[in-house]
């Protein structure tokens, strides 16, 4: 298991947080911390911290980047 810290740039929409969380929830997983912040009327930034092995993290990553409103995922740190 590893600690994963991601910063996600995304469109600010009513469903964006749900869709990000969906990528965890549908596999029965949960984040350790979540910080979502609106940057302007259309953009937001979401930082997530979660503890999963590299394989699970990779699959979550794939699920998140498929989302229409996700613009960029920055993997800040993996410990």
């Amino acid at each position, binding site marked *: 298991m590893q600690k994963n810290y991601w910063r996600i740039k995304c469109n600010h929409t009513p*469903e964006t947080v*749900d869709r990000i969380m969906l990528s965890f929830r549908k596999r029965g997983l949960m984040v350790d911390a979540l910080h979502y912040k609106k940057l302007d009327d259309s953009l937001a930034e979401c930082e997530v911290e979660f503890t999963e092995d590299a394989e699970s993290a*990779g699959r979550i990553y794939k699920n998140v*980047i498929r989302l229409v*409103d996700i613009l960029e995922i920055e993997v800040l740190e993996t410990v």
Partner: protein
Amino acid sequence: MKIKLRGADYIIKILELLEVDALFAYPGGAILPIYDALAFSNINDILVRHEQAASFAANGFARVKGKPGFCLATSGPGATNLVTGIADAYADSIPMVAITGQVNLPLIGTDAFQETDITGICLPITKKCYLLKDLADAERIFREAYEVAINGRPGPVLIDVPRSIQLSFIDVDEDWESKFAKPVYTRLSNFIEEDIYKAARLMVEAKKPLIIAGHGALLSDAWREMREFAKREHIPAISTILGMGVFETHDPLYFSWLGMHGMKYANLAVQEADLIMALGIRFDDRITGRLKDFAPNAKIIHCDIDNSEEDKNVKVAAFIHGDLKLILNQLPNTATIEAMEHRTAWVDHLTDLRDQYPIKSVDYDVFNMISAIDVLEKLSPEDIIVTTDVGQHQMWASQYLNKIHPNHFLTSGGLGSMGFGFPAAMGAQAAAPDKHVWCITGDGSFQMNLQELITCVQEQWPIKILLLDNSYLGMVRQWQEQFYNKNYSGVDILNPDYLLLAKAYGVSAASATNTEELAKAISLAYKTKGPFLVHAKVLKEDNVLPMVAPGASLSETIYYPQDVICNDAKLQEKNAKKLLAHKVQSYA
């Protein structure tokens, strides 16, 4: 100058500007203002008999027409009934716009009558969901939803429209319609020259390259380029089931489809190849078999419009992110003299494998699903559209239909939804009114949406149904036989009298218990102007082979027992003689 429009009229006008010509729909309280506006619209709203059929029909329409299918339902149960069809479209990447009515905006969150959080329910099965809270956003949202549905990897979107929004008013410019810009498909080229170069290097180095063509090739309308590419490079090809039609079945470079019930020679081709060119596929578990043993000798080039597919299920040597049509046009010619020598030997080897492991011969003396499907094909013109449901008949239709044109074989691949076939045929018929549309279905699947018979009568759709009745949920029974020690449970299905049922719906019908009767029934179906149900009472217990057992590798594809006759020319001759009488002008 401004004009005042009621929300419902404004939305219907937007749909007209999006060139929606068929709307598969069912009314209800929360969508009534939209229906009121529809009464004055030229949009063809088709009254289905269950909302699930609306979403499946929109799916079929989209596949044949090459543009998004639209479906509409009221709030609550109307909306939730759409869900399976939306999920199906998501699994198979079909562009679709689902519109639902919602309770009045102030009532949302009060557990109002027929209130359900449909945008929440549909989050995992749509590309995007919208709740229209302000009529001023309607044009932007509908345009964006349409654009999201068609661009990138296609898929369904949902727009939830509260009744109060439909009833509210908006002031718009008098000439707003002339300024409306319908979104267009933009071909994505997120690849760079280096990606192409890398792929070309792998092609040059390979001695046994193999193309796997997927649904992406049809969705991006790249099947012509794919055929030309394979021919130019002399690289053999197989496909997924959803990729059927990309290649002509009789193309000497095409070696059928792979996977759980794919041809053994196609599966072995994957296992022996040293390069897989995966073009518009997603490496579904039904085609890879045991993942760690998939294509053990091959490097993989994967071309797809969705970059989340890169290394998702299978590690690849090169990934090219973009529209397949653009990619295929960029891939350089690598057919050197040396490469052609290797590729010719490889094609010859695969041809030998095909001869060694042919498909089971059709025998018209045995009335099973295979002979029934074969009779249908033999009596049909070249360009029929076929839809299937899900189960044994689906696999046999995929194996035995040889005249499949691009986007003319509609089946629920990813989700595997029983009940898909008949409404999908309705969508196909709406999209292509001049084509012959056949739904090949089983008795289990057909009972999931047979209420749509009356829709076909009302719409005067001449859809033909080949109902293959073995009085079993055949595929489940097969698995219980093979993997659950013949402990048959929940598979013995009682059927209604289908001829009486058809009569009650005003649909012409005929029954068949052998191939001669079936040939007559199919001929009659072609001569009948309206819908027609052919009820074929086929062999009760039969197993689909070849088969890759769950958890097994493609190398372990189970072939037919030794006593099964394959590739028998005399049998084909005998079958042909039996059909001769019926083939004459059967579909004139």
